[in-house]
């Protein structure tokens, strides 16, 4: 049976985000991320003064870019991209040169001192491969995060991106980021 082509992505409805950081905690618990490091985080943007005040919360993590510059610069091939778009680090091949961290326009990677290698969001590939959604998606109480396969016309994210307006962050980086923020 021929394998179906997949392209995983996240749609983020950031207007619903209440900055509870449940996703950040869920990620840390699921992936055993050490204190001080984060695979996902919430950007806060405050404008104006009370009572004319606007506060925006915007979850961010690795964008699992279409043409990931982190993968391009890696001298050993430790940073690599799966056919379904997920960008991963092969921890056995990583020499810890941190070139990928410098080359990521979204600062989505971190260095783990203890092991001397670089790490990042895996889009919970271990969960995705058994048919679950990433931990951050499962946890989010206000349903900000929608995970799915862009190649599947029946998926919810396919429908959202076809019918709603959205943006991606800094498209001028040329990386083709795959976190879609609904407007």
């Amino acid at each position, binding site marked *: 049976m021929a394998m179906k082509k997949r392209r995983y992505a996240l749609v983020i409805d950031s207007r619903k985000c209440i900055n509870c950081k449940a996703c950040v905690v869920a990620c840390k618990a699921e992936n055993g991320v050490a204190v001080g490091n984060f695979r996902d985080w919430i950007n806060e943007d405050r404008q104006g003064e009370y009572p004319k005040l606007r506060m925006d919360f915007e979850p961010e993590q690795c964008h699992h870019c279409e043409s990931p510059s982190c993968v391009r610069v890696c001298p050993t091939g430790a940073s690599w991209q799966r056919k379904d778009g997920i960008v991963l680090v092969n921890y056995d091949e990583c*020499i810890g040169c941190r070139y990928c961290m410098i080359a990521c326009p979204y600062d989505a990677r971190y260095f783990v001192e203890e092991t001397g290698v670089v790490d990042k969001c895996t889009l919970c590939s271990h969960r995705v491969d058994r048919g679950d959604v990433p931990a951050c998606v499962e946890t989010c109480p206000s349903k900000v995060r929608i995970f799915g396969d862009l190649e599947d016309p029946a998926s919810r994210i396919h429908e959202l991106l076809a019918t709603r307006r959205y943006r991606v962050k800094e498209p001028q980086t040329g990386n083709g980021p795959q976190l879609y923020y609904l407007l």
Partner: protein
Amino acid sequence: MHELNWGLLIVVYLFLGGLSAGLFFAAGLANYLEVDGQPAYPRIARMGALLAPWPVAIGSALLILDLGNMLRFYKLFTHFRWESPMSIGTYLLTVFTLIAFVYAFSWLPEDWRRSLFGKVPATWKLVHRLNVDISAHRKTIAMVGFPFSIGVGIYTGVLLGAVSARPFWNTNLVAQMFLFSALSSGAAALLLAMVLNKREPIETHETKFLITLDIVFIVLELFIILPYLIHGTLSVLAVKQALWLILGGPYTLVFWVFFMGLGLLVPLAIEVYELAPSLLKGKPFHGDRNLALAATSLVLFGGFLLRYIFVYAGQASSFHKMGLLH
């Protein structure tokens, strides 16, 4: 979120790699120049050849020390990734270092070579087979090495310039800037070494040659830095913001006063002051020892600062902070 991933070790590595490239280039060039069928600058050629391999060898060792997983550095050689400047650079640097060592060997005085091999146990036959006189091939080795030395000089810039995520680096000028800075550092280091070598005092025609060479490289470097600044300020917002780091931001003082001033224009002025009378008015060239010492040290200081500013300011630049660089 964003912190510095590359620090001083990388700065030193880029500087030393460029320095070796410059030393090799100047030494190789000196080897080719002749007056009346006689080599014009044999002592410069020898000094440069003997010095060239060491900085890059030390620099590469420092780079390995900087890895998160030092013992895995061999993996750099078990992969070849043509899209990664670091991968290409690893091979380039290795080949260059080998050539530089072979070239240095070809310049070893007969007695040095004999005493060197005298330390090797007589039973190590394989090693003793290397005890051959290859001085006749100096020109060939230099010719093979030239493109690699230029390549290494360019590579130290491309390593940064190829990173599209950092607007401070991502222009096609950084490679040339680093190359000319490397060549200038090499010429200056060579002059410094010759001046400091009291056993065989430097002669004025040698000083004149190296000063002339350095002036040419500094001027070329200036012709790259100016367009870099002009182009950047006329560019898109991300590049403009990145350039703010040296045009009002935290690296302004070190860029303008210490690099541009002390590291580039002052030594250029000293060298022009030395050379101009003999060049324009036909007066004899003096070659003041102290002025040469001052100019060359400043050039090396400037070359180091250029790498420092680029490595640090470049990492601070990003598309991320649109509108809120602080």
